[in-house]
């Protein structure tokens, strides 16, 4: 097992490259909750550790913007991916162990080869929330996660003992009126119950949420393209092809990192990490 000094050095590389938080999970920890074929060792033979980086989402200024369209295409650094590559390079070049970025884009339906949400949980960076099960970091709230898999045996960070969700304010609200800010703002997608200030049950309508969170994206392009191809009238087809909806769908494919999501309402009302959104 590598020393604490080594794990600190790896984390420093990630933080210097732009990650807001970095945590480590043992590769073996994935076996308990992850089906075979989706575990770190299924991707990198001999995997011992998974290093997870969390990166910033929109700035506090973007959250504050009254024009909702700004958040739809606000633009992200996606620095967590850069941080992961910087740490991979460090592990391979300086320490001599294999390191790969964990694949996280879906390969079938919504299914990624490896879950970044689960990786973040196991690395002690956050816990699932009422809000579409988005992982919330107790300090920063919503972050974007990327991970690397390595044969380097690193001491793991324990999963969080105290969940980030529900926030004490939400627990108090639930006690008073039986709901939370996120459940109240989006009853169409979210539902859940709380017991003893802990999430008791939590479900969300993924298909409905997906169609709102990604109004413009691959799905909307496919939808619009099918409608265009099925339209027999050339004049109507022309209108559809040159419409804002189709143009924005195509733009979102090209400018993915500027157009990751179009609905942020459950996160907008979430108090976790809000202190970092209250500035001068």
């Amino acid at each position: 097992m590598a020393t604490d000094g080594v794990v600190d050095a790896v984390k420093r590389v990630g933080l210097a490259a732009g990650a807001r938080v970095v945590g480590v999970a043992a590769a073996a920890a994935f076996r308990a909750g992850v089906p075979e074929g989706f575990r770190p060792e299924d991707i990198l033979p001999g995997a011992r550790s998974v290093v997870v980086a969390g990166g910033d989402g929109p700035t506090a200024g973007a959250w504050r913007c009254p024009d909702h369209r700004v958040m739809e295409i606000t633009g992200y650094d996606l620095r967590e991916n850069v941080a992961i590559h910087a740490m991979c390079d460090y592990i391979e070049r300086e320490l001599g162990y294999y390191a790969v970025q964990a694949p996280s884009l879906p390969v079938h339906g919504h299914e990624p080869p490896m879950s970044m949400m689960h990786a973040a949980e196991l690395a002690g960076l956050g816990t699932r929330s009422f809000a579409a099960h988005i992982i919330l970091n107790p300090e920063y709230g919503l972050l974007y996660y990327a991970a690397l898999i390595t044969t380097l045996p690193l001491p793991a960070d324990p999963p969080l003992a105290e969940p980030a969700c529900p926030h004490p304010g939400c627990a108090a609200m639930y006690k008073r009126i039986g709901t939370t800010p996120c459940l109240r703002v989006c009853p169409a997608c979210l539902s859940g119950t709380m017991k003893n200030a802990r999430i008791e049950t939590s479900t969300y309508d993924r298909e409905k949420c997906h169609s709102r969170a990604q109004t413009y994206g691959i799905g909307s392009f496919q939808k619009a393209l099918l409608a265009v191809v099925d339209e027999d009238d050339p004049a109507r087809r022309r209108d559809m092809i040159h419409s804002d909806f189709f143009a924005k769908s195509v733009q979102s494919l090209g400018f993915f990192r500027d157009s990751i999501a179009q609905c942020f309402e459950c996160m907008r009302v979430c108090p976790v990490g809000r202190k970092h959104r209250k500035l001068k």
Partner: protein
Amino acid sequence: MTDERAPAKGDLVGPATTSATARLKALALKSGATVVGVADAAAFDTHAPSKHRPADLLPGARTVVVVGGAQPRAGDWVATSPWLLSTMGTTERIQGVGRRIAQAIESELGYYALFVPPGTAAGDAPFLSLMLAAELAGLGTRSLAGPILNRDHGFMYWSAVVTTAPFDVDGPTTDAACPAPACRDMWEREHTTPCLRVCPLDAGGCLAGRLDDGHAVRTAYDAARCNTRVHTHWVGGFQKVLEETLNEPDRERRKMLVYGDFMTRTLWSITYSSTNIAQCFECMRACPAAHGLKEMR
């Protein structure tokens, strides 16, 4: 700059403002910007339409930090292949600097900062004009061809951050890069300039204008035509070729359209949108002010 709110602990006031402005500018340059300037948010009010002003995007906005750079290199301009510039844009690099500046303002100074999205909400209207922002931040002036030209570095790409931080403001510059001395001479001799000659509106081009007492005056600009040339292979190109393909009744011709160079290059440009941002640079290629002052060997 006026600020009616009483300063609170940690607010930037007096020398702290100057020091913070200098640190921010140093960070921008270190992060890859070639130039950086600060515009007064209120200065947009007289130029920009409602909904497209800094305070419309960020309540309480005081300043707009503008960074410029990532322009084509001197070698790009002199390259003989037209495909080099038409497949190698670099705007993404300056947008990364803008994002970094926004995060630094929030995490290090504690003021709100909004990275102005480079895209549009609908149609061609940007959230905030980056060209206007560059002008108001004193980083350049409009050229006869249209783009903002910096006096020292010429044509650049821009990114901006709207913030509530009261940075020291740079005023607009009166030292215009356009027309360049060589263009004034050419106007005296031939009553045209390099950009007007390379893309004349009355002969199928996009630009019309004149020089009055040595000052550039643009009289007409065909934005729609310019757009189809600058973005030949982009979202608009894809929409056009898709429509043409679906309207084509002949199966073999349809196959040719789908696998043709136009469709293929269009798909490349969409997926590599950050490195394939424009396909026509002719007015800037011909412009002596667009390439900066440094002589290359």
